[in-house]
């Protein structure tokens, strides 16, 4: 079992979450070719190391956030709001 520290709800059993996968930056839809888009969709680093990934608290606050986890030990050293949400939070004040 692993415990995932949700930035909103605190440490919860991983079963409450959906592991969305490794975080990557989304290419600009207006200028990407289908090949580049598929590359973004499918290709993974799949590292055996510390990775930054997105998790979704499905059975909790239903928010997305970023987690730094080691994929060999499953240790988690940090969880935080994703960059985009941080910006939004500062902007809207909510």
């Amino acid at each position, binding site marked *: 079992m692993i415990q995932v520290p949700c930035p909103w709800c605190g440490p919860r059993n991983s079963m409450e979450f959906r592991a969305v*996968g490794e975080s990557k930056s989304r290419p600009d839809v207006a200028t990407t070719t*289908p090949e580049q888009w598929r590359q973004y969709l499918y*290709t993974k680093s799949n590292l055996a190391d510390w990775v930054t990934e997105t998790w979704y608290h499905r059975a909790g606050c239903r928010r997305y956030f970023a987690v730094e986890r080691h*994929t060999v030990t*499953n240790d988690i050293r940090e969880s935080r709001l994703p960059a985009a949400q941080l910006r939004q939070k500062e902007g809207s004040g909510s």
Partner: protein
Amino acid sequence: MSKVRYPAKYSALGLIKHGLMKGDWPQVWRHHELKPSYDVVIVGAGVHGLATAYYLAKNHGITNVAILDKGYVGGGGSGRNTSIVRSNYLTPEGVRFYDRSVKLYEGLSADLNFNIMFSQMGHLTLAHNDSSLRTMRWRAEVNKLEGIDSDVIGPDEIKKLVPYMDTSENTRYPIVGALYHPPGGTVRHDAVNWGYARGADIRGCEIHQQTEVQSIETADGRVVAVDTNRGRIATRTVVNCTAGWASLINVMVGLKMPLVTHPLQAAVTEPVKKFLNAVVVSGSLHVYVSQTDRGELVFGASTDPYASYSMRGSLEFTEELAGHVLELMPGIAKMRLLRQWAGLCDMTPDFSPIMGITPVEGFLVDIGWGTYGFKAGPVSGESMAQLIATGTTPENIKAFDLARFPEGRLVGEKGAAAVGH
């Protein structure tokens, strides 16, 4: 390490004689010093690597082959799977491919002179709702067109095949039908691995355990050597057969592919008298059950829900598994689990493998075997050997090429492979 004598041909008489006169059976493959070069270097001594070596030697006379494994023969998924063999997939290319493997399995004990204990007890995929019943009808029709014995049956027939199953309507997920595939069943996975290892060894291929590939050298876009903890090997052909670890080998030649490694867990109970004469799979309940010849029930489920290279079991798995198994067969509530374990699965987005050439010349892959690759060992070995020997991609693996991802030609086996393995 001691020199083992060439294993003699096994026979009933030899078995009795050995049993009466000698002690342990010797290991069926030999230990070698690492040579400075090989024609072909196969990374990973699971069923895929071993079968590739075996067919390279047997069908094409290519024997200057090294199979390297950082651990031991069958230490990966090939020694951890639940050994379900079937060919009732959903896409025509998938069905044809897996059916060739079933045919090879049917003759494999004789071919390898090693009893792989293939028991074709029949395979049932349960439907608990109309939409899965619809997919099953579709699958049955595709299967029949490809000449595969496969049909949809109702709860009464299911009850006849598996009397212990709760086919009543008073359950949370009532069983409304099943896809029945009589030639499906299980093998003894260790025997398959060891049989291929022995067959490859007898024909001159070398198995090197505890030999970890640490980097791969390329020059002008082609493979020239691999570096291991036991030294450097010059070679112009490297085959990546490392399943769950495949991404870590790919990156050594600068390639990234659509693979995510997920642990998959399984469990086994104490042995009881034989009562279950089919492999039973329920996609909706995320569980499957079969009974071994020794009498243990073997349970499996879907993969752990996050990417990981850890092979630790979890309590959630056991708890969920037990609950779901009991919904299907309440009568086994008093049975005890003996052990549980995990293996690594290299999942692709279309539940189909990645096989063949890559942009790096001399670097071939036979990966993406996810939760369903053991059954494909024989046909994959045969096809990869043909590719290596002839330089042309065999027809039956063309659909599984790496280029399908950038070109948007995914194979779409999810409906038939997600839990069924």
